[in-house]
């Protein structure tokens, strides 16, 4: 946020640098059940973002002192592959990924029936293979599908999308250049069935009216994401059914 640029990010016709309208999301494609070894998995492409998610659990907690006697814990590991960004990222968690992992775990905990699995852990690993802004929303969206793919009881999925502000206009789903040179970014995740907001961050500068507009835009997009998530799971179940028939 807040960098300077001579680039016009939105032209006189309201068209953004990658050809989208203000309230248009990048294309999103999700595939569920892509891995053999993981209990659940998903692969997601969101514009130029590429993300893979794997889920294990409920399984034993190590070390033991992390156990909760009355519920499962949710551990979320957001990581960027070293080759996912222009300047190679050193492997291992940094402060940014630690924070993203924390708030994403909290969001997922909301929809998982953790009380059903005391003393266990549900481990969610998401790796960004290619990054172009919005990776925390892409990761959480994929992770949610992977948890469902693992057959872990959930009351709903979590769907995520960001809105923000670029050249004094509220826009949906910022792309890399907009993220670098825009005025605000606000990732949101919701539980679609209830509309509850389970993840929300914002930095930059927005008036109250802009916040309202951005929230409306992002929440609407989350419902579109939700449809894509459900479709991915649907396709996976169809595939399984076919295999069983065969």
């Amino acid at each position: 946020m807040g960098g300077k640029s001579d680039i016009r990010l939105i032209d006189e016709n309201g068209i953004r640098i990658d050809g989208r309208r203000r309230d248009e999301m990048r294309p999103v494609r999700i595939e569920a059940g892509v891995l053999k070894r993981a209990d659940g998995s998903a692969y997601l492409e969101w514009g130029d973002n590429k993300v893979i998610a794997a889920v294990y659990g409920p399984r034993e907690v190590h070390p033991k002192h992390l156990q909760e006697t009355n519920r499962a814990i949710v551990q979320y590991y957001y990581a960027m592959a070293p080759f996912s960004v222009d300047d190679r990222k050193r492997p291992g968690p940094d402060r940014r990924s630690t924070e993203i992992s924390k708030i994403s775990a909290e969001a997922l905990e909301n929809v998982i029936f953790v009380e059903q699995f005391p003393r266990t852990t549900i481990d969610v690993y998401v790796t960004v293979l290619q990054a172009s802004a919005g990776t925390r929303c892409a990761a959480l969206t994929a992770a949610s599908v992977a948890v469902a793919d693992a057959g872990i009881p959930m009351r709903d999925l979590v769907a995520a999308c960001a809105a923000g502000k670029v050249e004094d206009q509220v826009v949906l789903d910022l792309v890399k250049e907009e993220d670098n040179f825009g005025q605000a970014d606000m990732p949101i995740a919701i539980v679609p069935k209830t509309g509850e907001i389970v993840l929300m961050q914002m930095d930059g500068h927005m008036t109250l009216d802009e916040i309202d507009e951005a929230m409306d835009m992002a929440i609407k997009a989350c419902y579109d994401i939700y449809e894509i998530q459900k479709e991915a799971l649907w396709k996976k179940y169809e595939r399984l059914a076919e295999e069983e028939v065969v």
Partner: protein
Amino acid sequence: MRREIVSRLRKEYIASILAKGERMDGRRLDESRSINIQFNVTGSAEGSARVQIGKTDVIVGVKMGVGTPYPDSPESGVLSTNAELSPIAAPNFETGPPREDAIELARVTDRAIRESGAVDFDSLCITPGEEVWMLFIDIQPVDYDGNLFDAAEIGALAALMSAKIPYSRMEEGAEDKPLPVRCFPVSITAAKIGDSIVFDPNLDEEHLADARLTVGVDENGAVRAMQKGLSGGFTREEVGKIIRTAGVLGDERRRLLFEAAEEAGVPVPR
């Protein structure tokens, strides 16, 4: 087991009085605890402050040094914010490298300062591409009774306001100059307990909270930062109300900050 029952009863009780609009310590739901801000509490820092919100007690120090700018912003000073959740402040805090709680606290404070443009980083350039001022904000809670986010952020802002750029260290005879602060974002934290929203939650309330939202608002009423925490959800409407109340509480807290600064001889805008 018995302890769990007790704590469940306690939770039910607190929720029930909250439903009536009352809090254990007698505050209104949207009322902050009393706040006390001291400036220049440690002479070895370029700037420092101690903030007490109720029994929560945080010391923030600002250190400055000369360093190399990032290649992609060769004319900007560098900000680094760190929080140390030392066991001094609470029995469950642990020594060792910062964990996710400390990292979240530091990053949320950092963003509130950085993204609001509170500090003019371009004024911290010494030689473009070669030497700039590094600005370290170190947050050291010493007593934790809830709502570290607000205490850390107002402490960071106060420490910056009191900071002097140590030009005298670079050049004999040069004079230290106040670090210019040009925006005054204030973080206001709300917690959701059952169906009630309380502001400036104390430790008991944090233990019961389902969800948390921290909102950074500036003196013009604009939102500069937000961070939701915990696994509970907020409705669209709750978020809207929290943001609006944060604007009011932020103005009040900013006024207290300016009063304390004036009293301490720390420059204040206007």
